[in-house]
Every structure is written in C-alpha cells, then in structure tokens.
C-alpha cells in the first residue's frame, strides 16, 4: 500500500555553509554528508543552529556562503516550493480551514497530480500513519498525536526527496513520545526515506537515528553513530551533552615516555602510553567507569581517590552517588542488585578509577 509513496532515496551534502543574522553568526563552516536512506539527527542545545540548518535545507533561510546539494544537485538557489524536500513543522502547521484530507492532498494539487492518483496517494498516506477514516475531520478535532500524523502524511504524500523533521516529538506527552519515535523509525525504514531529525534530546536521537551531528554555537562538534559519540566523544561538549560525564580539572605531567594527569588537589592518574593529549585538556570519565568502595578496600591496578558522599539517588537499576573529591563533585553509578548494603550520605568512601577508561578532552 505504501509502495506508491516510496522513491529512490537521495543523499544530502552541506558544503562550507556560513550563515549570520546581522552580527550574529548562526552557522559556521558547516560541512555534512548524509547518505541516501539514512536517518540522521541534528542534536544540540537550543540556539545551537540546528533548526536554522534544517530551514536552510528547506529553503527558508539563505546562507552567506556555501551550498546544499540534494541527490547531487545544488538546490541553494531554488525557492522553497521547487526544492522537493518535505518538512514536518514543530507546530505541525496544519491549515485549520481545511479537512485532514484537503491538508494531505494540498501538495499533490499544487503539483498538478491527476485527481485519481491524488485520491490513491492521500489514502495511502493516511493509511501509513494509521488515520484511515479520519479524512473528513478538521485539524482542531484531532489530538496532538493525530495532528502530527496528519502533518507527516501531508509531507510523505508528495514523495519528497528527503524528509525534514523539526523537533517532531516536542509537543507530545512523554508516553506518546516513545511510541511515536518507534513508528517514525519504522516508517522511515519502510519508505527508505533520507530523513533529518532535529532534536535537543539525546535519548530521542540515540534511539532512532543512524548517525548524529552534535552541534553547538553554530559549529558541528562531531558526527558519528550514537555509540561512537558516547564512547569516543571528540570534546568536552559532546561528552557532557551525550550521557553524564565527570570532568576533572588538572594538568598533564610528563616524565620521559610516561605521562600522568594530576587532578587539581594532587591525585595523579597515570595515562596509558600513546594517548593523544589536546591542549588545555581535562580528565573525563563516565559514572559507570568508577567503582565506589568502602574506605580501606583494596583495588589492585586502579587509582583510589578519597572523598565524602554528599548525596545519593536511587535510580532503580543503579544508585548514583555524589562524592566530593578534591573540591570537585564526582558522580558514581553503582549497580543495584537488591538487598545489598549501600553507602550512607556523609560517610567517606574511595573511588577506584580505571585508568584505561579515562579520556583527556578539551573544551
């Protein structure tokens, strides 16, 4: 049924894009290569330029420099209505004066598609999003989730070369969000549609996307699969934006071939040989990369740091402790297996740090 909505997927290339509003530089030398059929995310905090980049691809912004190619063709100078890139708006932007059916048919009518084919494709699009039989309703008679499905159906009905989703889950409640993101992924796979998903929520990006571009202050910080970004963050921003990161200030000490990182306050962590050390680096490790031990316990081969337990949060599968070490607070996740003893707030404990799992990253 949805076959009539599928088409050959197209890739997207963004080359050297600079974009400013007056004196504010919103995008700085952005270069991206999105593969045909890929589910790709622009991830970053609000104001990082991710929506601006999406709107640039849709043609609602103009870059001062650089170009955008879709399926190998430069579309930088095309107006929005000639680009054939489908966009689902954050607000859904359903036209309140038209029924669901008229909304979905709109793009096809603008493309002068034959009437019979319009009917078929509208039905297919509505079926694809599970809204058969809702065609005669008005947008105002639908729930938020249904409105979003209409917006999606309206966009895929025109068989766009690529699909752009602007924060598609932000106006839905938490439970619906999980369901909809799975459905989005399923639909994307079925149509093999190159899709860009803009979000500020790392969990959303991690769960549905093949690859993510992490953005901050108009600059693409790193591009990679969710796992690559988590395990090998390129800098402190990526490390702290994806997952929880402990970041310790200090300095690198070299002694011939061997080197070590001295955390402010004195504790030294020996660094594995050959570790790349960027300038101004800080020590980063994840809460699950440290073990929390009672004072005086032995941990062969690992560095011990002493500190005071300042707070404790029970998360179900694990317990997250805050431990004050040498002026900095370190978060530690200890697995919770039930019935086991735990450390009390106010008590002292030792952190056992696995030197092989620490990273030195710059800001």
């Amino acid at each position, binding site marked *: 049924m949805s076959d009539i909505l599928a088409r050959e997927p197209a890739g997207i290339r963004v080359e050297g894009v600079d974009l400013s509003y007056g004196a504010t530089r919103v995008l700085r030398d952005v270069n991206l290569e999105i593969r045909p059929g890929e589910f790709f995310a622009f991830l970053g905090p609000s104001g990082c330029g991710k929506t601006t980049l999406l709107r640039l691809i849709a043609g*609602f912004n103009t870059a001062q420099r650089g170009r955008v190619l879709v399926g190998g063709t430069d579309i930088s100078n095309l*107006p*929005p209505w000639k680009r054939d890139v*489908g*966009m689902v708006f954050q607000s859904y*932007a359903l*036209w309140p*004066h038209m029924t669901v059916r008229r909304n979905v048919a709109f793009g096809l009518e*603008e493309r002068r598609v034959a009437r019979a084919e319009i009917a078929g494709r509208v039905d297919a699009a509505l079926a694809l999003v599970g809204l058969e039989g809702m065609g005669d309703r008005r947008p105002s008679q639908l729930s938020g989730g249904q409105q979003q499905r209409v917006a999606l159906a309206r966009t895929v009905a*025109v068989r766009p070369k690529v699909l752009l989703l602007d924060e598609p889950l932000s106006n839905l409640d938490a439970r619906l969000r999980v369901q909809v993101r799975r459905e989005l992924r399923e639909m994307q796979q079925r149509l093999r549609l190159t899709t860009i998903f803009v979000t500020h929520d790392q969990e959303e990006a991690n769960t549905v996307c093949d690859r993510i571009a992490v953005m901050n202050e108009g600059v693409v910080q790193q591009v990679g699969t969710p796992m690559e970004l988590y395990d090998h963050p390129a800098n402190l921003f990526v490390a702290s934006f994806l997952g929880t990161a402990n970041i310790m200030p200090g300095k690198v000490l070299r002694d011939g071939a061997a080197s070590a990182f001295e955390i402010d306050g004195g504790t030294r962590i020996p660094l594995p040989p050959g570790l790349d050390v960027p300038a101004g680096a800080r020590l980063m490790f994840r809460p699950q990369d440290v073990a929390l031990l009672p004072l005086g316990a032995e941990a062969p081969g690992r560095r011990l740091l002493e500190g005071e337990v300042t707070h404790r949060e029970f998360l179900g599968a694990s317990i997250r402790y805050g431990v004050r070490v040498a002026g900095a607070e370190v978060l530690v996740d200890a697995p919770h297996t039930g019935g086991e003893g735990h450390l009390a707030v106010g008590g002292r404990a030792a952190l056992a740090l696995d030197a092989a799992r620490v990273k030195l990253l710059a800001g």
Partner: protein
Amino acid sequence: MSLATTEATAATPPVSRGRRWAARPGEAVAFGLVAIFLIAFLVVPVLTVITVAFQDRATGGFTLAHVGDFLSNDLFMRSFWNSLYVSLMSVVVASLIALPLAYFTTRFEFRGAVLVQTLGVLPLIMPPFAGAVAMGLLFGRSGSVNLLLGDYFDINIPFMEGLNGVIFVQSVHYFPFILLNLSASLRNIDRSMEEAAQNLGSHGFRLFRRIVLPLAMPGYVAGASLVFIKVFDDLATPLLLNVREMLAPQAYLRITSVGLEDPIGYVISVVLILFSVLSLWVSSLALRGRDYATVQRGGGGLARRRLPRGQAVAAYALILTILALVLAPHLGLFLLSIATIWSFAPLPDGYTLAHYTRVFAESSGYITNTLIYAGLAGLLDVVIGTAIAYLVLRTRMAGARWLDYLAMSALAVPGLVLGIGYLRTYFGVTLPGGTSLAAFWGIIVLALAVRRLPYALRACTAALQQISSSLEEAAENLGARRLRVVRRIVLPLMAGGIAAGFVTSFATAAVELSATLMLVQSNADAPLAYGLYVFMQSPAGRGAGAALGIIAVVIVGLSTLVSHLVTARGGKESA
C-alpha cells in the same frame, strides 16, 4: 470576626450552584441598579419602538398594516434599496482601500508600516458628517479635484453626486474597521502555515488564495459587517449630503415632520434593528468556531518579505494615493476652517482665524455641553461596566451573564432607534419643574451612555480578567473584607483598563449624532456634533462648522492619545 469568616467562605470562587443566590447585599444592590438602568433605558425604549411598529393605533391590537404601508410605498422601498446599495458599496470601496494597506504593511518589509497603520486609523477620530462638507469641496462637481481634472483633462468625475457621495464619505470614514480587523488576522497567521504550503510546492498568488486569504477571512468578515451596520444605520452623513431617500433619514424626517405618532418611522426602526442584528450575527458566525489565531510557540506572524525595487515603488505609490484620499477630509476640513472664501477654486482665496474666534465667542456652549455629556456618559459607562464585569467574573451570580448580554446588545441598536424610543417612552414623563424627561438634557447623556456601554464594558472585563483571583484571595486571607478587597486590590489594578474604557466611551460619545439629533430640544442643550450639523447646513456657517469639526477632532484625538498612553503604561505594569 464571625462575619469575616462567613464572608471569606462565601467568596471562595467555585461557588456551588446551590448557593449561587447567596449573594452579599452589596452585589445584589449593584445587580439591581444595573438591571433597572438597562431595562429602563435600553429594553423598554427598544421594545416600545417595536411594539408601535406592529400596533393598531385605534385598537392597540397587533397589526401588519404599517409594515404593509411601508412595503407598498415606492419612496420607502426606494429608500430601503438605496440604503442596502450604499451599505454594500461602502463595504466594497472600504475593502478596496483597506486591503492594500493591510496586505502591504503586514506582509512585507515596509518602511513606515507603523505610520501607515496609524494614519489609516485616523479617519475614525473624526465624525463622518464633519468630513462630508469638506469632501464636497474637494471632490464635488466644482471641487478642487474636478476643477483640476477639468482644466487638464476636461473630465468631471461624479464622486459626490447623490448616493456616490454617501458611499465615498462613508467608506473613507469607516474603512479602518476593515483595516484593523484584517491586519490583526493577517498578523495572527503563523509563518509556518505559509512555509508548510511553500514546502509542498505552493507559492505566489495560489499560496495567497489557498492559505493566507482563507485564514484572514474571519477578521475581514468581522470588519466588513461592522462597516455595513455603521453605514446602514447612519443618519447624519446622508442628511448633510442632502440625500434623503435612505432609511435612516426617512425615519428621522417622518418623526420630526409628521410626528411621534406616525408608525412608519417605527417600522423603519425595526428594519434598521433587523439588519443590525443580521450583520452582527454574520460577524459572530465568521468568528465562532473559526478561531484561526494560529500563532504558535516560536512563531511570530507571517514572514515579512522584501519587495523587489519596481514593485516597492508601485506599492508606495498606491499606498500614498490611498492615504492622500483618506486624509483628504481632514485636510479639507482644516482648510475650510481657516478659509475666507472657498468656492469654485482648488484652494481657498485667503486665510483667517475668524471662524475659530466666532466659534469660541458665540458657540462655546456646544463645546462645554459636549465635554459634560460625553464625560458623564463615560463615567456612567465605566461604573456600570465595572459592576457588570465584577458580577460576571467574580460572583457567578445567576443572571450576571444576562446583564452582560443585555449591555452588549446595545451594539445592535442604531442611535436613531434609541432616540426615537426615548422620545416615545419618556415624552409623557414629566420631571419636577414641568419639563418632559424626553426634553431634559440628561436624556442625551443616558442615550450616549447606553450606546457606548459595550465598548467600556469590554475594556473593564478585559482589565478584570487579567487580575488573578489569587490576588484577592491573598487579601482575604490576610483579613480584608470583601468591599475593602474591591477597593484596595481590584479597583487599583483595574484602573488602567477602566481609564481606557472611559476614554473610548468619551471620545466616541463626543462625536455621536444619530441619537443626539433626535433628542436635542433646544440649541442651548446641544452638543458639538449637533452644532456642527446646524452650522454646516448654511453656506455661511461652513467656516465656523469646520472650525467646530477641527475642535472635535482635537478633542477625540487627544483622548485617543491619552488612552494609548494609559494602556501602554498599564501593559508595562502587568508585564
């Protein structure tokens, strides 16, 4: 202590339905007074008019004979069709004026958009009949424009001949209603509405026709029906232009020349009410359930586009022409007020301040009367408006909502009809001292107050709505009794809205003429608008009339300015 406790419990907002009559005495008194006022000065006069239209004069029974007389009389039917034609054409012409102004200033990066919007509303602050004579001098058969056209092109355009004149004057005066409503609608369209259409392949005129226009339609219809109703009910403009074959002038002439007993005036009044209700209904239909205010989070109205150079020049030329046209009455009136002699010439022969001296010397009574009448009417309006708003929003008293509806229904009552109703109802009522209540100047104040009450009521309601009831609960919690809460918390916070309501009532009442024309019994009691009307009827009085008109414009303009300042300050406070 125990009293304070009971009061506090009774005032908890979700009053249960069973206890809704457990109103405090003060509220019951306020309710009663407002109800008596509305019944005596709105309901009874209007019902009287309607009754007389269907009453047999001899037997007092029901009859359709008067309606039959109206329908079978050529003059009245011609008047009816003329009124309908003039109203519809005024809507058309007003739309032609308002559309480009609204469209260009809201949708494009347009230098001076604010100025255009401000100037575009200016005509509303001048009484339409005041501009009528000036328009005659500028656009009439031997007016400035036609003299120049005759000199250079040897043509003469009948802008001001017969019904054309009424249509021209009315549309130039009332188009701001369309401009304001349409601009608001256009601004309320979220840019994503338009972008979504572009993204799906639509652009240019098709985009405008399929997305922008339908979304702006409710605002347009609301504005257009307002123009229709105002023109349909207006009495003074056609009279001043010497157009008598329209409904309102016919009703006026029948009542004033044939007498209060003549039923045709009442039948015409019923027709006027009928069409007013009809167009209000159309307007509410357009707005109900189609609240297309679509601005969303992160939205901000339609994206403004830059016009290409050539189109920009054309757009500016168009807008400047339109502005020149709509500001012509003001300019003309001003020229007339300082002209020595102005006839058969594009510009006056000479200039003088004599008209102003004359007005201040001979007719300052008009000005004083206007300030007193409009001031009292405005005061009455905000007192009643505040009372109704409070009863509706804070007490949930059964019937409070009906007071609101009743007060708002004054919108559907033409001033002429109200005037006729007052005359008929209160002519027999004599005041201590022997004069009839209908001849007492206070009746003019009451008529003005009833007519402008809807504006003041909406302003007061909006002001009260913005005050969270938790502010009052906090005061009660700290021990203040209900009346003290109203005095120390509610009224100070409402002050800005109340002031705005007063100014609106005052400014519009200052230039009201329809009801006033019916009710003024002696020149000594007449307000400015009436004096203006009297002056304008003789060529010799035109200069002084124009001076009086300029004074009216200044009064209304100043009060509008004050209201802007007050609301701007109020907005800052609440923000």
